């Protein structure tokens, strides 16, 4: 949030600043009693950004919620990504194939994801960011679910 506030000075009348926040599937702006901590924290950040956008319309902030982020097909980054703790690594190994095959909507391969997030930061796809079909809007602040990211990436 401190960064978003600082970066809004980089925006101007003619050149809005695109702040693409990487949240995650499961984040919620209206967490129920049983929602996990990350859901609440990320949801709160999303709401804070929405509020900031309302106050400064030149700060084109938006939130994206990737789901199962999968680097397995992305050779260029393989050597640079952080290692996961053993148990999580194992769990992901088990879940990866079913997600890739049956739950495509939850699949977030890193190469197309990187591409879409970059495009959004460059100000592309703005005409697609209307409410409905996986896009929730809090005022002018769009929250993009994984399905939307996949769609924008052409998946």
């Amino acid at each position, binding site marked *: 949030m401190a960064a978003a506030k600082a*970066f809004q000075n980089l925006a101007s009348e003619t*050149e809005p600043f695109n702040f693409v926040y990487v949240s995650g599937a499961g984040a919620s702006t209206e967490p129920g009693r049983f929602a996990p901590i990350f859901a609440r924290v990320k949801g709160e950040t999303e709401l804070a950004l929405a509020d900031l956008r309302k106050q400064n319309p030149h700060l084109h902030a938006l939130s994206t919620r990737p789901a199962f982020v999968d680097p397995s097909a992305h050779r260029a980054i393989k050597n*640079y990504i952080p290692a996961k703790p053993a148990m999580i690594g194992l769990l992901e190994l088990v879940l990866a194939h079913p997600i890739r095959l049956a739950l495509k909507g939850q699949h977030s391969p890193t190469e197309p994801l*990187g591409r879409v997030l*970059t495009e959004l930061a460059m100000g592309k796809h703005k005409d697609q960011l209307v409410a409905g079909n996986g896009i929730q809007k809090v005022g002018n602040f769009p929250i993009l679910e994984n399905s939307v990211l996949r769609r924008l990436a052409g998946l």
Partner: protein
Amino acid sequence: MHVILTGATGLVGSGVLDAMIKTADITKISILSRRPVPMVEDVKDPRINVIIHKDFENYDSALLEQLKGARGCVWALGISQTQVGAE
């Protein structure tokens, strides 16, 4: 176009960095990172400027001066949801 990236050493951030490098329209990439970014060191792309920044609560004018002209940023800082502690 000048863009900013945080979280470049992470899973999503690495993917974004790779995409930014491959985007011809991007003329400058400012990375805010708490530590050096190995991928940048290997790729040696002159468009990339890694700014070592430890305090993500504070952004002084010297830093903002370096970020001037940026049109957007990808904020990929944070850790995986499965690894978040209770704090």
